[in-house]
């Protein structure tokens, strides 16, 4: 749960978006599951005070290594960027309930921006000889993808489609546009389980969606999926203090038989069934 992890490699992937790749060796890799995250101490002082949550993007059990991708967003991640190879970091984790791992059928991974990172681990974990996988990924522009681990997708040799806001790569528009057309492609009518791509399985095989990205995008993804009765899992983000379920700082709201209820994003999530998340909170 609390591990001193050694920094095996640490590098900046692309200047413009400040995304770093950090490989850690230690005890976490042995039990980490796709969709879980680590809660990292980024410095030795009380400034900043709290740990920072970062998704586990790749898990290499044989080498005892996990890979994290993070974007420099403020003080904490800027400090983390200064950590050197060979140093150790205090890492709490693996934390949380991750993605369900389908054993068959089809899986669409839908990512907005840096929301791709937790999906990498799911992509690597599914048995792609039995599950057809495709990635839909949206971001601002072409440069983003190169600096955000597009190489990982190429290396894993997976089918993917991208969308950019400025049209500089892939389709111009939003990742939800990609999702909508993929869900439509094989005429998945109301209530029917659609098949995704031409040649993408046997028409009746179950399609699932796993998504991570900004909240507005996740809401739209969930709505699209619900309309077609496609099960969808979403990976949520919230400000965290403890990261272990003790402080109730990181809650989201879900619908239950007994009415709306709070769930802790850190330990009850971060992955939730999209159907149960209450997206518009007062």
């Amino acid at each position, binding site marked *: 749960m609390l591990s001193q992890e050694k920094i095996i490699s640490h590098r900046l992937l692309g200047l413009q978006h400040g995304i770093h790749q950090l490989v850690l060796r230690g005890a976490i890799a042995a039990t980490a599951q796709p969709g879980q995250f680590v809660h990292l101490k980024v410095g030795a002082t009380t400034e900043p005070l709290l740990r920072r949550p970062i998704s586990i993007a790749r898990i290499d059990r044989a080498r005892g290594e996990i890979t994290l991708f993070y974007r420099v967003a403020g003080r904490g991640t800027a400090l983390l960027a200064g950590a050197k190879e060979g140093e150790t970091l205090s890492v709490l984790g693996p934390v949380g309930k991750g993605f369900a791992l389908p054993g068959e059928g089809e899986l669409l991974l839908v990512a907005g921006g840096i929301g791709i990172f937790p999906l990498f681990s799911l992509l690597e974990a599914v048995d792609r000889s039995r599950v057809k996988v495709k990635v839909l990924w949206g971001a601002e522009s072409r440069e983003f993808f190169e600096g955000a681990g597009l190489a990982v997708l190429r290396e894993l040799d997976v089918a993917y489609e991208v969308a950019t806001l400025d049209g500089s790569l892939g389709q111009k528009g939003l990742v939800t546009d990609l999702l909508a057309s993929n869900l439509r492609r094989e005429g998945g009518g109301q209530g029917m389980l659609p098949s995704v791509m031409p040649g993408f399985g046997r028409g009746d095989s179950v399609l699932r969606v796993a998504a991570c990205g900004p909240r507005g995008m996740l809401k739209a993804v969930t709505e699209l999926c619900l309309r077609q009765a496609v099960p969808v899992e979403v990976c949520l983000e919230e400000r965290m203090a403890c990261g272990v379920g003790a402080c*109730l700082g990181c809650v989201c709201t879900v619908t239950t038989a007994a009415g709306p209820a*709070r769930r802790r994003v850190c330990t009850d999530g971060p992955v939730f069934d999209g159907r149960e998340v209450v997206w518009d909170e007062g």
Partner: protein
Amino acid sequence: MKVDLTTNLGGLKLKNPVLTASGTFGFGEEYARFYDLSLLGGVTVKGITLQPRIGNPVPRIAETPSGMLNAVGLENPGLEAFLSTCLPRLERLNTAVIVNISGFSLEEYAQLAAALPEDSCIAAIEVNISCPNIKDGGMAFGTDPRSAGKVLAVTRKQTRLPLIAKLSPNVTDIGAIAKAVADNGADIISLINTLLGMRIDIKTGRPVLANTMGGLSGPAVLPVAVRMVYQVYKAVRLPIIGMGGISCWQDAVEFMLAGAAAVSVGTANFVNPLAPLEIIHGLEAYCREKGYHSVQELVGLAHCKEELTNDGKR
């Protein structure tokens, strides 16, 4: 030399003086994954209310220089679910449990105190008087000596368990509040609760917390807390549980020198889940080095002798 760590706080007997603070330790189980909680002096669980509460919307957390703001809004399952679900699990943790209660009226405090069994793992009740007093127009019970005293008086009638009055630091005269709760049946005083604070996001121009304001905790509040423990030690004879920014054994020693007979670790758990254990070990080593046979010899040493005799209090 063996150092005696046992701590006796007016009827609340602890194996050592290190507790965990309410709201930072869930209902215990979350940290049981990191170590055996029976090593602690005890745990204080999340504040409970009569009815379940869903708490505030998010964001509930904002970071501050060496500290944090929280506006959880007392989310808790309510008394009934606490008794049926949480309490049986707490029994299994094999440690002294302090139950923190919050009421929105005097009757609610009384009902909560009456419902907590005296023959369970519950070792004491901590009465959180920082809650808004709805009937008297929304002012917190804990900011006025008379209403603070009343809360303790009504709770006292309902239980024989040791009563801890948890004081709010958002007052001008902490000594007056301490006297009021001492005169009305409190056995122990704990302090400080969080200091009211606020942050604004300069990008959006809006408050960071959905609740606008929240409670400040962590290292940033430590000197305020030490000062208030010092003042309360002078004002009343009751044993004190000191808290506010304690993250290492040195901080704990400082609180004990100021007059705390025990300490609670709160926000530090979030940063270092092992902090309470490290503090226990550090306290023991410090006492051994200084030649104290009991950790209780530290309590109040910062108050110089003359001051105490003039004061006539201790």
